[in-house]
């Protein structure tokens, strides 16, 4: 006999779909089938069941081989590493729950470490822009029920957030958007003709890295002022046409992604996008929302902000929280070789940091807490596999629109395997003893 669990939360992307169904064996030990999730979410649930999964902590030996050790020994190693280090870096947090993040922040405080989340290589520049000029935003429910103008700028939800358009932004029939896709005009701005762009009413194939100019040109067009013949490769008449489409709606939303956060102008691109949203509010109602990647990167920013006052790139080495991206941010710290111990959890900087920063991880004592084998575990001294959060344990997570949703446990982890929260508690207890903290 099998059992179907409904309303399961998918722990992959910031869309945090809450309508997934999974079929488990009667004893709750095997996950058999997944329904409603996208292909990436399905793979995440099913991979937890793979036979070649690492189930015990592994310590790298002098000859490069791995030696299996117990969780107690792994917690000892981690606590000693953090206690000894002058400037440890604790990075990741976006693929674990808020409860584990909070314990991690306590460890960071005791260890006087730098701590950062994956926003550093994702929407960190968005957070800088939000601190500059604020963010007029809304929830995805409002988008579903109200938005008749949807702009995807430098993002490709067809690939990165596969169910975003079907659950919230384009296809659903909402209260004021009863005809679904027919009720909405869709504009995509991207230098490639992406699978999202192919669905759009208008695709502006912008010259790569010229987002700031085009955003400002749209602001100019909204005011009816003079424009050059072409801006960022887009003819002036096309810019005016899109400005008219944008302001003629009743409720508009600008979703933006890595195309603007990772291009050269970075936070200034987002400044311009938010300023455009503000200008559009003189004509109609407009909101703007970052397309957050990891399923709980938003939660990590929230927990950092509650506990330290800043959403990422926090430096606690002086015993109080400092925040100065460029100085206290992970990629810069690692590239400059300022870090003498690396603690990674719920992310993979080995794959997603520039190689010059990854070399900084390989040089120092390092712990990687991750259910998968990754490039980060491949260059770390200790690899601690843990239960899959959102599959083998529950916990609180934040959707991309800052709505908190509790993830659910649907299947038992392999026997003896700890969760992030349990392992971090072991590390915290040991670290407090080593540091003489009550």
């Amino acid at each position, binding site marked *: 006999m099998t059992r179907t669990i409904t309303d399961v939360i998918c722990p*992959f992307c910031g869309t945090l779909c809450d309508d997934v169904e999974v079929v488990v064996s009667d004893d709750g030990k095997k996950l058999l089938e997944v329904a409603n999730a*996208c*292909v*990436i979410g399905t*793979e*995440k649930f099913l*991979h937890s069941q*793979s036979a*070649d999964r690492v189930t015990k902590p592994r310590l790298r030996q002098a000859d*490069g*081989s791995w030696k299996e050790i117990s969780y107690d020994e792994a917690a000892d190693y981690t606590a000693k590493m953090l206690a000894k280090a002058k400037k440890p870096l604790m990075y990741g947090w976006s693929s674990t729950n808020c409860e584990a993040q909070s314990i991690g922040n306590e460890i960071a405080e005791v260890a006087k470490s730098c701590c*950062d989340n994956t926003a*550093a*290589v994702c929407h*960190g*520049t968005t957070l800088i822009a939000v601190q500059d000029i604020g963010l007029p935003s809304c929830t995805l429910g409002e988008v579903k029920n109200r938005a008749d103008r949807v702009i995807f700028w430098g993002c*490709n939800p*067809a*690939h*990165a957030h*596969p169910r975003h358009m079907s659950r919230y932004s384009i296809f659903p029939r909402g209260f004021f958007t009863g005809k679904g896709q027919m009720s909405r005009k869709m504009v995509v701005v991207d*230098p*490639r*003709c*992406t*699978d999202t*762009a192919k669905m759009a009413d208008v695709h502006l194939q912008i010259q*790569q890295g010229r987002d700031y100019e085009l955003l400002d040109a749209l602001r100019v067009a909204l005011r009816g002022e003079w424009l050059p013949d072409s801006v960022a490769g887009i003819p002036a008449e096309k810019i005016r046409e899109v400005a008219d489409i944008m302001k003629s709606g009743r409720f508009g939303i600008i979703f933006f992604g*890595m*195309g603007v*956060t*990772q*291009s*050269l102008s*970075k*936070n200034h691109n987002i400044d311009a996008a938010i300023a455009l949203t503000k200008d559009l509010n003189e004509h109609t109602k407009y909101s703007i929302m970052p397309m957050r990647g990891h399923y709980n990167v938003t939660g990590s920013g929230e927990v950092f902000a509650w506990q330290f006052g800043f959403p990422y*790139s926090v430096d606690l080495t002086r015993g109080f929280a400092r925040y100065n*991206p*460029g100085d*206290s*941010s*992970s*990629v*810069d710290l690692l*590239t400059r070789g300022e870090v003498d111990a690396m603690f990674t959890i719920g992310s993979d900087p*080995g*794959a*997603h*940091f*520039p*190689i*010059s920063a*990854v*070399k900084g*991880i*390989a040089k120092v004592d390092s712990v990687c807490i991750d259910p998968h*084998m990754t*490039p980060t575990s*491949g*260059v770390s001294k200790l690899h601690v596999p843990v239960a899959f959060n959102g599959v083998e344990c529950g916990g609180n997570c934040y959707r991309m629109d800052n709505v908190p949703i509790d993830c659910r446990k649907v299947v038992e982890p392999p026997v003896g395997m700890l969760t992030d929260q349990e392992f971090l508690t072991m590390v915290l207890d040991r670290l407090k003893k080593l540091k003489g903290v009550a």
Partner: protein
Amino acid sequence: MANSIKVNLISGRTIQQGVAIESGKEKTSYRTACGIIEMDNADLKKLGAWKNTNVKVTSEYGSVVVKAVEATQGPHPGVAFIPMGPWANSIINPNTYSTGMPTFKGTPVTVEIAINEPVLLGIELVQKNCGVIVG
């Protein structure tokens, strides 16, 4: 036809990359999904490369061997795309210009045919670049 061409490199998510990272980065499927460079047909012609030829991509910051494939989300002449992962991150511009964010999009690169050079697996590539001894 030239021995090498210059293009503007961007990186980003693809759905194949998403599936591959969740099914195991130690597997060959990760290399299939991300150890590639998507190039416009016009650029492949300029380079004189057949589709699915291994190429060496070099920037000011490093070089990496990947498989050149036809753009799946084109046309985008002059722009090349490597899905996010260790292959792209071997050559992208790591400068953050005081924002904390490397410049993952918009790195000028040179592409040349490297038909006899292998595309490494993801973990293998990072370990080799970092000089990690593997037992």
